[in-house]
């Protein structure tokens, strides 16, 4: 399909001919459906989309997208994607990874891709377990989680993907939920439009090996108390009628303040959410909020602009051409000291 026709793109244009092979009830289905819904809106010709993944249930994703796709090896997807994007900045490159693929074996590539600010959308499906290998604990699993490989319970302190990404210097960081279609779709749009690495943690349910891990925020009722939904420019408030509460951050230390109905949160010192603080410190303070003491923040934590890796690379090429002119092979071979042997 060509640029001209792409106005005509629909969800079905992004459905591949392979049958989807996830367990019944897997959160991945919902994410796939919503990605396929959002694609047509993005104004990108289908042939310019590339989906890159590692290994894991979630990493089967590219097979189901009728775009260019590369199901690579375990943990390395961000590096493959970096090669693609640095080579061809005009492509829209999406990385699909899991909590094991992205944060266990692949943590280092994620770290460096984020700090380089390569313009990728990275979707990390966090089901807090290794699905494909049938249920071992992952770097995001809770302390004490009993799995096949930890019959006495996990003893490693889990990684928080958002805190990790901020520690890596991420320019765009967001968290969303597999089953919340509108929020998920909006987050995907935001990620796409962000120039630079857009890191999105998707809370995903694995009914087979770690069912209901995120039920508190997946369930619309409990979510009211359990989730802190972020809105740029609005106070950090959550909780239902009569139970309104807010987040105050003093000297970098967050705390919960309860709010009598109706009253203005900021008066109580509740912080107002800003995505664009130059410092990552504020976003990190949000990331540090953990259940059960605090609600789980959902939404865009941080969105700041910084030149992308591939743009700076292109600039170096262009300015080099500007300085030396297009490379001349003959001139290169004859540069420096040479001598002639006469016949």
């Amino acid at each position: 399909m060509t640029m001209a026709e792409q106005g005509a793109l629909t969800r079905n244009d992004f459905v591949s001919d392979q049958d989807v092979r996830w367990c019944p009830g897997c959160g991945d289905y919902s994410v796939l459906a919503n990605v396929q819904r959002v694609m047509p809106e993005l104004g990108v010709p289908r042939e310019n989309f590339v989906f890159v993944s590692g290994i894991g249930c979630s990493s089967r994703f590219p097979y189901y997208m009728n775009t260019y796709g590369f199901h690579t090896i375990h943990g390395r997807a961000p590096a493959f994607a970096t090669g693609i994007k640095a080579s061809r900045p005009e492509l829209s490159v999406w990385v699909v990874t899991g909590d094991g693929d992205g944060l266990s074996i692949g943590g280092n590539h994620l770290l460096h891709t984020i700090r380089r600010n390569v313009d990728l959308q990275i979707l990390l499906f966090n089901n807090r377990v290794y699905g494909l290998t049938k249920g071992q604990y992952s770097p995001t699993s809770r302390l004490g989680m009993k799995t096949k490989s930890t019959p006495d319970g996990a003893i490693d302190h889990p990684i928080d993907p958002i805190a990790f990404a901020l520690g890596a210097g991420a320019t765009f960081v967001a968290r969303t939920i597999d089953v919340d279609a509108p929020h998920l779709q909006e987050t995907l749009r935001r990620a796409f439009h962000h120039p630079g690495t857009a890191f999105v943690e998707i809370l995903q349910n694995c009914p087979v090996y770690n069912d209901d891990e995120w039920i508190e925020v997946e369930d619309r009722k409990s979510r009211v108390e359990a989730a802190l939904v972020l809105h740029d420019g609005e106070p950090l408030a959550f909780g239902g009628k009569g139970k309104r509460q807010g987040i105050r951050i003093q000297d970098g230390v967050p705390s919960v303040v309860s709010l009598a109905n109706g009253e203005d949160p900021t008066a109580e010192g509740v912080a107002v959410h800003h995505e664009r603080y130059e410092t990552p410190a504020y976003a990190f303070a949000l990331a540090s909020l953990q259940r059960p003491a605090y609600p789980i923040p959902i939404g865009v934590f941080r969105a700041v602009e910084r030149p992308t890796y591939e743009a700076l690379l292109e600039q170096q090429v262009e300015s080099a051409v500007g300085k030396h002119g297009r490379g001349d092979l003959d001139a290169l071979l004859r540069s420096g000291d040479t001598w002639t042997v006469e016949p």
Partner: protein
Amino acid sequence: MPGKPTEQVERVAIRFAGDSGDGMQLTGTKFTEATAMAGNDLSTLPDFPAEIRAPAGTLAGVSGFQIHFSSQEIRTPADQPDVLVAFNPAALRANVDDVIPGGMVIVNSDAFNTKSLQRADYDGDPRPDLRRRFQLVEIPLTRLNRAALKDLQLSQRDADRSKNFFALGLMYWLYQRPMEPTLRWLAGRFKGDLLEANSRVLKAGHAFGETTELFPVSFVVPRAKIAPGVYRNITGNTALAWGIVAASVQMQQPVFLGAYPITPASDVLHEVARYRHFGVKTFQAEDEIAAMSAAIGAAFAGMLAVCTTSGPGFVLKQEALGLAVMAELPVVVVDIQRAGPSTGMPTKIEQADLLLALYGRNSDSPVPVLAPSTPGDCFFTMLEAFSLAVKHMTPVIVLSDTYLANSSEPWRIPEVEALPRQPVEFRTEAEGFAPYARDPETLARPWAIPGTPGLEHRIGGLSKQDVTGNVSYDPRNNQRMIELRTEKVARIARDLPPLEIEGTDGGELLVVGWGGTYGAIRSAVDEARADGSAVSSLHLRYLNPLPSDLGGILGRFERVLVPELNQGQLSRLLRAEYLVNVESLSKVTGQPFQIAELRAHIDSMLGKA
């Protein structure tokens, strides 16, 4: 030439040795240029200290540079120097035992004091003993040098730093080399007092040679008969880097180089990074796995992708390389072999990654393997590697080594018009496209890159269905696909040129080599044959697939010897492939083969020793 008499010699090998700070590499390079201008054939080899700088004056800090030049064709930096120029006792101690008995040893007599002798672990002054073993020439280098600069406003430190040019001038006189190229270079590089100082001491050194009693004669090494053309000196690493740039020009696609620094491969990254104006993109990755992965991603996106690394890094690339085999994408991986195992001796020479290149991945995972034989050959090997990769849609491995990487030789600059020109062609036609439909000739699959309408497809590391490339667990299909990938690589042999034997193409003994040992093996065999032995040599550029005429050739010789800087890797391959009783000569000292040791082994095999 006025004054002193001259003496003609065919060939000379000189080694400059001093402290890391004494500028030995520079001195050697300048002498090399002058020698090239003088029209001799030549070969050089630097000897770097272990990676990090050691305290001045210690043995660990000694740096050296050897140049071999001749009026005849030569192929190695020579087994032993005829002349050693040692700038301090440490340099003397570290090198003097390599000098041929009775050879000339030039020392800076000002550098001999108890402190410097201690630093060099000498208990006493070694000179009395050396006077017996060598032609010891003692020059008060430091004082002569200072004297020459007396009237300049230079700190003594700066003044002393120029003494390598005084020695250089002296050697120019001793071997009748032109000073002009060096003077021209100085003028371009320095100005003011420093320019004046360096130029002056260079001439002073030359004049000193003319006047001193120490040298009764100077030597003439006549011009060599060299094929006409424009020449330059080039190291293997530079040639390799330029080969990468050249491939991009000749194939009309930009290059993506993914690398993580590692000795001795880093210089290729450094060199290629200078050519952004050729559209080259270099990516210093977080590790070798990422470098390899990014390069494969770049290949998927349509770039000429390449990775440069060395032993330990090459090991780390294998898993991703296996994916490239499965995805059938063109990417070139260069392993500049170094001495191992494990971290080993990172600055030393070995060629022991051949079996790793062939078998370092899980399951049967065939990859073509090429090895250059000389520094200049690294350039052409890279051109060939890229064109094989693209034509056959396969990763390709190039095995260089520390010897090729750092040694240099005069290189006849090729005419760009004469270089193969093979513009890359991507699949664009949607009609009848299938990701794993194959070219009936080469069995290559189409190169269909993102951005091409109608060719959207998915690839990956799971077993693939024939033609469609969809995931498949079908047993027969899996067998077929594994056989297809093997056959695809095997068919490359069809394109290979016939092997060229040096000497008779049958007889008592054939010496087979590969990679950087070419110069030493060829020289030793040629010498032996010149002395009437029925021995020939054959050097392999293609290690996988092996050339189809190789088996026949091996069969025509009574005995086959394979000298290798490893424990016999190529000989295992040849034995398994052809059931020929190949004999292995193995050396793993971290040093290159010496012509003499090869010659001795050949003679003993032929009952001549």
